[in-house]
């Protein structure tokens, strides 16, 4: 599908959450001192947040949602739809969205959807919930987006371990007749399905006695079938091929001038890739906020982490025109153009130290 627009729906609050446990790439035992300094300089990631065993995407998103309800003075009973985006659900089944119904005391009559998307997931989820709210005339919606990808990483894989991090988020959307339409453009290219992948543990390659066996793929890189793999070069190539024209065409279709946009909030992949995109689009550094240094690549949660960590004060003071763009596993990508309302709840990311439990 080409670009499309959704009128009369507005974001009225965002809260992002991270585990309180932190790892520093300078402490990585798998790398020498010089390699660590080079890695941090090049990929731009110094510290990452790690969910302890037993802390899940539900825990992170429930923590964010509870803070969001409080900050935006929203009664959970007023929520008409929930979309939960994650690739690390609490269970193979049921989906996370039903689990949060109980934890957040949401109405049983609301709609509950789960969306299996990675780094493009915030924009995909935003388009899904806004589209359903508009077409079904729902007043309030809750978008929950989060992942604990650190649980899928081999501790002996230098291509993934220094990059991925954990986070959750909750975004409140409301019907709002006086707001600018949101504009979206989404896409996917399945030829890139294997460039970011967990091959084992699903229906195609079911979990068996060998699923946890570590194999050496190249010197210093050991993985099992249940670990996440990433071909960084191909991720960059797919991103440059698809993301740049996607953004350019969305701006054109929506009739927005690139210079009129206050901030371009990109998925935080790594500094090499993000800088390549910024330079390709000829964007000034001050319009492209980054959170790689402190939070790393938190998969689908990078966009809300970046908005709340970098733009919270400005979002409170004035309406902002934002371009949001996510890209990654699939290979999939999505861009959104929207205008925030002045004064929305958008505090700095909160820390979650304990799982909420089952």
């Amino acid at each position, binding site marked *: 599908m080409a670009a499309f627009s959704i009128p009369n729906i507005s974001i009225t609050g965002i809260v992002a959450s991270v585990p309180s446990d932190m790892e520093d790439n300078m402490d990585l035992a798998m790398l020498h001192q010089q*390699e660590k300094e*080079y*890695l941090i300089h*090049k*990929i731009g990631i110094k510290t990452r947040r790690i969910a302890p065993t037993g802390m899940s995407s539900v825990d992170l998103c429930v923590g964010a949602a509870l803070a969001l309800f409080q900050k935006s003075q929203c009664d959970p009973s007023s929520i008409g739809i929930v979309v939960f985006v994650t690739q690390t659900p609490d269970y193979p089944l049921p989906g996370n969205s039903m689990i949060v119904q109980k934890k957040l005391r949401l109405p049983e009559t609301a709609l509950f959807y789960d969306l299996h998307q990675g780094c493009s997931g915030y924009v995909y989820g935003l388009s899904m919930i806004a589209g359903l709210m508009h077409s079904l005339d729902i007043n309030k919606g809750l978008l929950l987006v989060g992942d604990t990808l650190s649980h899928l990483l081999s501790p002996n894989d*230098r*291509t993934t371990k220094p990059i991925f991090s954990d986070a959750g988020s909750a975004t409140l959307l409301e019907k709002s007749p006086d707001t600018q339409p949101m504009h979206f453009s989404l896409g996917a290219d399945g030829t890139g399905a294997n460039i970011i992948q967990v091959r084992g543990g699903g229906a195609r390659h079911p979990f068996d006695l060998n699923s946890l066996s570590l194999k050496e793929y*190249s010197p210093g*890189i050991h993985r099992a079938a249940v670990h996440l793999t990433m*071909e*960084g*070069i*191909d991720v*960059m*190539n797919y991103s*440059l*091929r698809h993301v740049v024209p996607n953004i350019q065409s969305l701006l054109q279709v929506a009739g927005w001038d690139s210079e009129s946009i206050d901030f371009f909030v990109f998925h935080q992949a790594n500094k*090499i*890739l993000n800088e*390549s995109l910024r*330079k390709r689009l000829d964007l000034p550094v001050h319009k492209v906020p980054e959170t790689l240094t402190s939070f790393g690549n938190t998969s689908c949660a990078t966009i809300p982490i970046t908005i709340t960590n970098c733009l919270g004060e400005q979002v409170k003071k004035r309406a902002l025109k934002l371009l949001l763009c996510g890209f990654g596993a699939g290979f999939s990508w999505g861009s959104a153009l929207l205008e925030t309302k002045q004064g929305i709840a958008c505090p700095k990311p909160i820390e979650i130290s304990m799982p909420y439990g089952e």
Partner: protein
Amino acid sequence: MKKELPDIQSFIAILEDQFDDIAPGSLQPGAQFRELQQWNSLQALVIVSSLNWNYGITISANELRNSNTIHDLFLLVTQKMHE
């Protein structure tokens, strides 16, 4: 956008510039880049990114795996610029 075809010297200079501690003029066309002490998956990403920026072409992970020397990379880049 595709750019001007490089000569081997300017191509090597761009590669050398991507390493933190390789002196200008020290890489030779026949050098096996994977044998360099500084070579790893991150350095590979840095190189492919710089070739994309400087020459407007993309090199896949497989294409890089099938190249061994600096000259192989040079031929790959010039071939792609001709396409």
